[in-house]
């Protein structure tokens, strides 16, 4: 048995039947690393229309008090739908640095 395998909980330590009891714990799994381009918000241009927010597949557009404040880069996969749908071009897609391509 590999050491890695031993670090995970054993059969006595996990709930029966494959149940997951911690709702929404997928936030512990970060998907931001999948991204090749990151969205960047120009707050001055933004009109808070929230199109980016409603079209985000990854619940990664942050809105606080009805105001779009930016992106949660832990989860954003960089699809760019937000940037494309922004009616005022307040979002630009920037290449992730360091680039994954060497």
């Amino acid at each position, binding site marked *: 048995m590999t050491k890695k*395998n031993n670090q995970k*909980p054993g*059969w006595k330590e*996990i709930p029966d*039947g*494959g149940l997951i*009891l911690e*709702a929404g714990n997928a936030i512990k799994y970060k998907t931001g690393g999948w991204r090749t381009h990151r969205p960047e918000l120009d707050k001055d241009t933004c009109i808070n229309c929230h199109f980016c927010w409603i079209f985000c597949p990854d619940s990664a557009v942050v809105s606080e008090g009805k105001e779009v404040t930016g992106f949660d880069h832990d989860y954003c996969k960089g699809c760019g739908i937000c940037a494309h749908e922004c009616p005022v071009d307040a979002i630009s897609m920037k290449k992730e640095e360091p680039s994954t391509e060497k």
Partner: protein
Amino acid sequence: MSNQVALTGNEAMAQAMKQINPDVVAAYPITPQTEVVQMFSQFVADGAVDTEFVTVESEHSAMSATVGAAAGGARAMTATAANGLALMWEIIYIAASTRLPIVMPVVNRALSGPINIHCDHSDSMGARDSGWIQLYAENAQEAYDNAIQAVRIGEHDDVRLPVMVNMDGFIISHAVENLDLLADEDVQDFIGTYQAEHTLLDTDNPVTVGPLDLQDFYFEHKKQQSEAMENAKNVIVDIAKEYKELTGRGFEYFEEYKLDDAEIAILALASTTGTAKAAVDELRDEGVKAGLLKLRMYRPFPAPEIAEVLSDLKAVAIMDRAETFSTTGGPVFTDVRSALYDAKADVEAVNYIYGLGGRDTTVEDIEFIYNELQEVVKSDSVTKRVKYLGVRE
């Protein structure tokens, strides 16, 4: 406390379901189980139960909806037979692995094809490794008793597994016999109320049921299931004892019939064991030391216990009302023989495949097996390990 009535096996099973009063029943009719669904529908129509009855469009959906209901914290039941059980196949594994204490009467019938509506065990025997507890009954009384105990067994904290309550199609399901029913309140007292530990409907504690379970955890979940099956053995004994205190009836893993001093014996399950008792009685009158082991609990399989009671015999015949087509015998045979191997018992074991598709099995047929066992003992040899009882050449 109890009252004797004359009911068909199906009527008895419907009564058990009514007295259990499940929160949800999702079921689809299939011969020979149909009457159970019909009678239960009438209980619902008359307001005799609190059950939400889901008239699904197939057995696949019957088991699917029952899984949903049980995951929602309901005491949930369904019932089926033969091809209906086969159509549920995929979901019976999910019911067991999701650890849902569903109780399901199965009115045993041959699994096609060619299509046949009569009794054999090819339906439930095929499901023997699905992770369900399986109980078998000699008669309507035992089927009724098993159904009530099944609720407690499945819901027990150490178990939490679904239970299949088997009853022979037509032979028991459609025959009127005497039996004692418990009073409704005694059934309710016995089974108690059900509180699932985690349910979809507990909105304060949302739960995810049925995730994608990959290489890193699936194996652990299987180990849990296996452990629950192991635990079921003690739980089944405890509940059988408690039920016997209440009713004076019942067995734990099996019934030993004139087995104490027996030299030859038959191991069988379900309705044929009643016929076998008559054969044992007749042989005993002739001075033959014949005995019978009637298996009630087939899953989990009580291997050491069976080996212990069979070890002092000279020869045992194991009767299987199902084929495996492995060419090495029926399912019960292979399990029993393997148990005897572990016990290092010096007892010849032979297998009789019988009664497929409802073929009648008479007292004379069973006496024939005992006679052959006597030959095995006398000649100290087995000419053929697996035989078909009464098939035409």
